[in-house]
């Protein structure tokens, strides 16, 4: 055993030496006459966000005299990015969101950007970034170590419908859970399919439980479930599970919803085959090409009572703690908050801009208002998605079973509690 340990240790040390030696070499300075700002994006070149970022970077380059190096790699580009950044080879700017901030923090890659809040945004009469971005969004981009990235887009979750077909939902959205269920029953009785669900996407399926629980209970009501098993005993948890059970039993989803491959269900919804779809605020932009003319996409928050907490998530840009040009990176963060780019995020990318003074596109006006008026906010998935073993391997599959009616609400709570305890024990 000893000899083997020694061999393994030696191998590890050699490997480590090779790596650090090689990357130390990387610090050798090439005399650079000009400053370079590098950005690697998970957007694809033809997506609206990519185009907006590209033109903003070009403007910045012109204004500041910095050379800009930008690559739009697409969704697959995130897979090895963290390793490259950790080895000192990453870009200065990268895409971050409230859901993956913990991952960047774990490897100490997200440089604190609290100082950006004090920087003035060009052309805004001296207003600083901190003035223009609402506190709820700043919270969404921070954790106990401070502000981890600067948001340019606000993300939330809501239940979506087409006001052209269902004006009654626009004028009087359901205010309580019972009203909501009543609406579903009415739709079903009239021969329509109330809800379209892309059942092969577990983190869309969990929206029902997540919204029911956290809208009512506020921050930490979901997160606690992975921290202590006693949290499962709270009556609110069983209540939320019962609501989802009601949906499962009511037959409100399209037939075979659990076997529907994304994005079939949301496309069906926008074309009017069902009334409702629960989704993030990116929905309107995703279904843009199949939206029939005359459709008016609107939304309402899932009424769960309690605190009526609203999800306030953020999408933005982070500064690489191990990058080479943090100064220009931070300058760009402030630069990008100018209203002309924020407007483009609203108009072209069809998302809610971070700045509260820039109006969101019409389809998102309800969501933006909900965010602005919210008395209580919480982060996306209550940040529970950071713990993979719990989220991916236990909670999402269990929730899928609940949504299909394969377990009752009581069984859900019981199994959830037991399995969480197991996982917590194993992760010490």
């Amino acid at each position, binding site marked *: 055993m000893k000899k083997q340990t020694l061999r*393994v240790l030696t191998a590890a040390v050699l490997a480590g030496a090779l790596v650090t030696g090689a990357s130390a070499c990387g610090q050798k300075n090439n005399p650079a006459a000009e400053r370079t700002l590098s950005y690697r994006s998970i957007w694809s070149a033809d997506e609206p966000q990519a185009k907006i970022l590209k033109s903003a970077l070009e403007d910045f380059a012109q204004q500041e005299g910095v050379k800009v190096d930008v690559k739009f790699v697409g969704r697959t580009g995130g897979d090895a990015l963290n390793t490259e950044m950790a080895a000192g080879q990453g870009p200065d700017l990268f895409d971050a969101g409230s859901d993956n901030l913990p991952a960047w923090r774990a490897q100490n890659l997200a440089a604190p950007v609290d100082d950006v809040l004090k920087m003035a945004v060009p052309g805004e009469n001296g207003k600083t970034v901190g003035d223009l971005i609402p506190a709820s969004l700043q919270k969404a981009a921070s954790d106990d170590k401070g502000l981890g990235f600067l948001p340019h887009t606000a993300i939330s979750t809501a239940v979506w419908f087409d006001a052209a077909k269902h004006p009654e939902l626009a004028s009087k959205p359901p205010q309580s859970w019972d009203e909501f269920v009543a609406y579903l029953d009415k739709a079903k009785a009239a021969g329509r399919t109330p809800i379209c669900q892309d059942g092969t996407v577990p983190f869309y399926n969990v929206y029902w439980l997540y919204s029911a629980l956290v809208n009512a209970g506020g921050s930490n009501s979901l997160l606690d479930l992975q921290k202590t098993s006693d949290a499962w005993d709270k009556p609110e948890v069983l209540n939320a599970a019962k609501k989802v059970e009601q949906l499962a039993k009511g037959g409100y989803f*399209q037939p075979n919803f*659990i076997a*529907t*491959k*994304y994005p079939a269900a949301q496309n069906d919804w926008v074309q009017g085959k069902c009334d409702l779809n629960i989704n993030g605020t990116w929905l309107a932009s995703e279904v843009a090409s199949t939206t029939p003319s005359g459709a008016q996409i609107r939304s309402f928050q899932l009424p769960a009572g309690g605190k009526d907490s609203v999800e306030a998530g953020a999408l933005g840009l982070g500064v690489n703690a191990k990058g080479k040009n943090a100064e220009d990176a931070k300058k760009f963060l402030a630069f990008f908050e100018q209203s002309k780019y924020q407007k483009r995020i609203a108009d072209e990318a069809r998302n809610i801009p971070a700045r509260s003074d820039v109006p969101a596109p019409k389809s998102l006006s309800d969501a933006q208002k909900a965010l602005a008026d919210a008395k209580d906010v919480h982060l996306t998935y209550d940040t529970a998605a950071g713990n993979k073993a719990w989220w991916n391997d236990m909670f999402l599959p269990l929730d899928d079973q609940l949504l299909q009616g394969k377990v009752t609400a009581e069984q859900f709570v019981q199994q959830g509690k037991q399995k969480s305890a197991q996982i917590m024990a194993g992760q010490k």
Partner: protein
Amino acid sequence: MTSRLASAEAVQPAWAAPAPAARKPLLPSREKVFWAFLGPALALYTLLFVVPSFFGVWVSFTKWAGPGSEMSWRGLQNYVSLLGNEAFLRSFVNTLVLAVASGMIVFGVTFLGMMVLRQLKGRAFIRSVVFLPVIISPIAVGAAIGFLLNPDGVVNRLLGFLGIAPIGFLGPDTVFACIIGGVVWSSTGLYIALMLSAMDAIPEDLYEAALLSGASKWQQFRFITLPLSWDVFAVASVLWVVNSLKTFEIVIAFTTGGAVGVPPIQARTVAVQQYNSVVVSGGVPDLGAGAAMGVIVTVLTIILIVLVRRITAREQVELS
């Protein structure tokens, strides 16, 4: 025809030849270049494959989120946690089921194919076309699969014409069966091609003699074809074990396609489970767990290879 006979003789391995005493003496020229010829392959393989693998084994005993983050020693804890992780256990079982069940179907179809394709008009054409799925990338399959198997997709519409209600093929309980189907569809062609080639090396007159004695196709297969192509089957089965235990891309293709997401537990293989723990999207990476899974798969592969070789080993059948 002569070349076939020659290759038939060549099929007999060198060590089946007479006793060591009669073995040819060392050929000095070959021995001289041993290290020179072997060098590049050995160096590349050791440095860039074996050493990183040891590093992987090392990581499997730690808790690590990637370079730049703390690496803390956990001993065997990763392995113990895996044994208690339902999702991992399910993926392990799935991988085994995939290897065994698909393997039986693939080789079952292959043997049946060998039985009938020996003398069939259009056999070369059939062999070519069933090989096609082998060269189609699973990603291409994944891109089209939603289209085909959705509840209102092409297949269900066809079923609709026949009056059958739509089936939720891609639902969590049924998608694994579809994946097995997909694996069989995309691999069988390769094994049919391999085994047919082996069969081609068997001289015609054996079959003629058998036919004269009144042997049916099945009997010809069982008593001539199978024994004389058994060696190739042995090699093919090892290849199958190795490839099937790594199944990854086709699972992603059938479940989440290009969208970031996590396949349902019922459909995951160990490779999928491992990839999830290594990648950033969706949470903090757990490289220790990922590495541990890698070690487990490697051990499983070795065990299965040894098992398969035991089962398929037997005396060389020589042509007299």
